[in-house]
Every structure is written in C-alpha cells, then in structure tokens.
C-alpha cells in the first residue's frame, strides 16, 4: 500500500502571533507542522507498522524553510518526502494548494491520501476536498479511527459528527481521508530518527515539473483573496463593567472574553415536584431531549 500524506508548515498558533495590519503580514517566532497534519503522518506510520509493504510519502507545498516540516515528518517514520515550491506560488489560497498537491500526488500512485482536517492558520478545511475532486476519488472528512481489516479492497472508518456521534463509513480505495483530533497520539521521534531524517533525500518539484502554468496558481489563480487582517477582538454582547471588587486579572479576563451577559433567570422557588416538572417541560419545549 502506498500512502501519501499532505502536510503544511504553519505559524505556531499555540504561541503568540504578530499581526501587522498595514502590510497584512502575520508572523510568529515558531513554525511547526500543522498539528492535525502531524496526526495524519502518525496515522500513516501506524498503518505502516501494522500492514506489510506500506510506503509513506509526505508532500508539502511551501517555501524553502518548509523543508524543516518534511524532515520532521521523516523523523516520525515517513519513507520519502516531496517538496513543492515555486516563487509563483506565493499568495495561493486553499483551492490552488489543493490543485498543486493533487498534481504532485498524481492519479493512481497512491491507495490512500491523508490530510489534516484543516490548517491551523487558514482554518479553511478545503484542501482535502479539492484533492479528492481533482483525482476523482472518494473523500471522507473528520476521520477519527481507521479499521485496517480491508475487505475486498474496501476500507472502513469512523468519522466525527455532531452531538458526539460517530458515523461508520465504508469506502473504495484510493480515497482521500482528512483526520480530526483524537485519531491518535503522535509519537516523539527519537534522536536517532531525527539524525537519520537529516540525511534523507528530498525530491523537489517546481511548477515546470508539475506542468502547471503560473496563471493558474498564486494570487491570480486563487478564488479567495485576503483584503485585510486584524488582531481578533471578542464580539462584545453588551456593555459590561466588571465588578470592581474583583482582582485586576479577573476583570481583564472578563473583558478579553467578551463580557458575561446577565440573563434573567426564571426562578422557581415552589415545591419539589413543581420544580422538577417545570424543568422537564422546559427541556421538552426547547427540544433538548
């Protein structure tokens, strides 16, 4: 089985993000592999450990520094790495990224293509769908567990749906799977693995190698364009003045989180049965049962 894993290098969104409103640049001191993509790499390596004859290839589109992300994935146990970059790709949106990755992956090369459900920077969740569409293969999103007992070439998996439920899906292969948090706990690579990963060859692809024209990528080929960026501010529900008895830190926390809006609770002081009936009626009316 051949598995391709698409990874993206993103600013570490767990840490501080600097936003320059004028230039629209968003920077962070740390660049990491998109956390959900790390889970995709881990899942591929886990499959490799359980089935025979599995090769894992990681594919990344990004500037020269994105090589760090590929080395990171190699140290986790991936076999090969493909680095796609061209100056023309600057300013590409998720749609273009999906098209470029699909072209790099190519039809009929891989049985399984894994991606993270969404990138931590753009929070779009579009790349997996574009790859599946271009390669004309099935797409299963939000996968949280994969059953490796293949039955006549079909794979079974569970995907996360609303209300804490899991949907069991069966698909033919090849397929694109986007993975959600909870699918696994990624390993920490050993020092030895990190050293070995440094020595591995990384295949480099540019637009020419992909046979794509500059017009279909970058800002020209993109379907959505960034107009402006700003530091996120909470949407304040109502003007709220925190109690001056509170600690300064608590007051700051209240304000930063958008304030706490007072609700007028319907108070029930009556008897026990009355209160219970009221509650049951209430949840029934609000369709919370």
């Amino acid at each position, binding site marked *: 089985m051949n598995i391709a894993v698409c990874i993206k290098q993103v600013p570490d*969104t767990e840490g501080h*993000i600097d936003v320059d409103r004028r230039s629209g640049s968003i920077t962070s001191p740390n660049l990491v592999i998109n956390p959900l993509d790390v889970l995709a790499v881990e899942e591929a390596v886990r499959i490799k450990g359980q089935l025979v004859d599995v090769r894992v290839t990681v594919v990344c589109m990004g500037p020269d520094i994105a090589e760090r992300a590929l080395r990171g994935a190699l140290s986790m146990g991936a076999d090969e790495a493909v680095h796609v970059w061209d100056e023309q790709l600057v300013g590409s949106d998720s749609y273009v990224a999906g098209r470029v990755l699909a072209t790099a992956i190519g039809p009929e090369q891989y049985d399984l293509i894994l991606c993270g459900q969404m990138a931590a920077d753009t929070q779009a969740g*579009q790349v997996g769908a574009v790859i599946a569409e271009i390669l004309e293969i099935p797409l299963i999103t939000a996968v949280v567990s994969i059953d490796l007992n293949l039955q006549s070439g079909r794979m079974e998996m569970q995907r996360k749906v609303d209300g*804490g439920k899991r949907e069991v899906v069966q698909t033919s292969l090849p397929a694109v799977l986007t993975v959600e948090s909870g699918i696994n706990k990624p390993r920490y690579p050993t020092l030895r693995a990190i050293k070995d990963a440094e020595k591995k060859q990384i295949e480099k692809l540019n637009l020419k190698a992909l046979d794509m024209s500059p017009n279909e990528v970058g800002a020209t080929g993109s379907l959505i364009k960034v107009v402006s960026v700003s530091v996120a501010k909470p949407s304040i529900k109502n003007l709220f003045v925190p109690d001056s008895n509170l600690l300064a830190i608590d007051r700051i926390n209240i304000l930063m989180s958008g304030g706490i809006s007072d609700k007028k609770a319907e108070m029930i002081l009556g008897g026990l049965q009355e209160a219970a009936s*009221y509650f049951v009626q209430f949840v029934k009316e609000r369709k919370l049962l």
Partner: protein
Amino acid sequence: MSIGRDVLVIAEQHEGELHDVSLELLSEGCRVADELQGELCAVVLGNNVGHLTQPLAKHGADKIYSMENPLLVDYSGEFYTDALSDFIGDLTPKIILCGATSVGSDLASRIAARIGIGLVSNCISIKIDQNDLLFTKATHGNQVHTTFKCASQPQIATFEPGALEVKKIGIAKKIETMNVAASLNPDKQKSKVTGTIQTDLTAMDLSEADVIVAGGKGVGSADNFRLLEDLAYALGGCVAGTRMALDAGWIPSDRLVGQTGSIVRPKLYIACGISGALHHTLGMKNSKTVVAINTDANAPIFRIADVGIVGDLLDVIPSIVEQLLELKAQV
C-alpha cells in the same frame, strides 16, 4: 429572477426536522439579499420534506426549492454534492450560505471543490462593499480576524450554529415553491455510511457534548455525584465539575470546566451546587441554555442562568430523573 444577485441558503434537515442553523442563515440571508436587491432562495434535500417549506417561508425565503429522492433521505456527501452542484449551476446565485455543522462543513468543501468556487468557512460576518462581498473569519488559532473577498461567482460561506441570530419575519410573503429533480446514480457511489454509533459518554470530549451536567462544592460528596451521573444519563449528556469538585477527587481532570479546564458551550448546561465563581463561569458562559440548581437564591450563577431552581439538589435531581424516565417510558 435577478441573475447573480440572489442568496441561496442550503437548509439542513435531519429525519424531517430542520436544523436551527438553517433559520439563522435565512435571517442573515434576508439582510444580504435586501442589500444586493436580490431574492432569498432556500433549498432543502431529503425525502418527503414538503412540510419544511412552511418554516422556511416564515423566516423570509422568497423561493423554496425541494429536491426529493430516496437516496437523499440521509446525508451522503457524494449524492448531495452531485444533486446540488447541477442545481447551483442553473440557479447562479451570488452567494451560497451553509451551516458549519458536521454535515454543512463537509458539504460546503465538496461543493466549492466541485464547482471551483471560493469558500470561506466558519464566517463571523458578511459585509457588502459596492458589489463585492467581504467575509470575515477567525484564523490562526482564533487569534486573527481575516477578511476575504471571493474572485468567483457564486461564492460559498459557512456559519457556525448560534453565530447568527434568528429574526422573526412579520409579514408573510408570497412564496414560490418548486420541486427539482435530482439525477443520481447509485452505482457510482464509492463511499457510504453504514451506521452511526454513540460514543461513550464518560470518555467523550466535553467540547463535543450537547448536554453537560456539572457539579460543584455544593454536591457535597462523591456519592452525591452519582445523582448527577443519573441525570446526565437520562439526558444523554456528560458529567463535569468545577475546580472544587476536581480537588475533592469527585471528577477526573479531563472533566474540569473552567478557565484552566475545558471551555464548553453545550446546548444545555446544568449547574448543580455551583455558586458561579469566575474561574468556572468563564468556561461555560457561552452555553446556549443554562439551568442552575442551588440552595442559595443569591448565588451569582443565577445571574447567568435561564432557569434557576432554588432547592437542594439531593431532592430536586432524583425527582427530575424520575420524571424524565417516565417521559421516556411513554415514548
């Protein structure tokens, strides 16, 4: 029909019931359609969904399309995308709105990829600047707000349930309802849903729970916490607690709700014996409905509750559980 000015809302239904997010989208769609001077259209997919046109009309839709096919009875990414992509191609709306639910997010990404149109997922707001639509959404771990413009027509945006308000429409409009045939080929289906399972409520991540029953210092003991478990079980929800409950060893650390634990926003949050200290309320204040049970009528928790029950939870909860079980037995 005004070409390229209409707003299309993809309504979501489960087992013949409309998802609330569809009404929220209609309210927002109404505003956008007015500004664009276009019409507000809604499309609903399923089997025998004719009765849903009424609530859609009440919330401002000018035209309602229904696509009925036994293959569309439950959500299937492949069938829904096939059916909707052709339909959208014919309708040519300016903008398509869809809920950022698990169904809507999956569907929107597929439609955008299929037709090759711009997608802005988990939008916060839409503004109209002359003839362009500007979409703002949170990015970079919600630390940044980015505003996008789509180069494509139509364009598609998703909104999280609860992000928009439902507005009541006063006047009943004259509406058009139309059936659209969906041509689907079941032989082409490559992936299919074979079942749905409920995850273990004691292991489920709190952020996924629709109902949370939380206890604080007022619960009193680990034994009393069992009552909360009974209530959670009867409602199909998860048990959680405050820092006090964690320190007392009544709940495991992954069940802590508060600033240093999980930040949750379930549909129903039941606070039992919780006074409402800031550490805790900052973790649950965005819950859709809050019910508080406390002996102290002056507890701060009542200030953010929709329903307050002043009483001893040791009496109130068993009584509620009893009534809930009776109700279930009747169904």
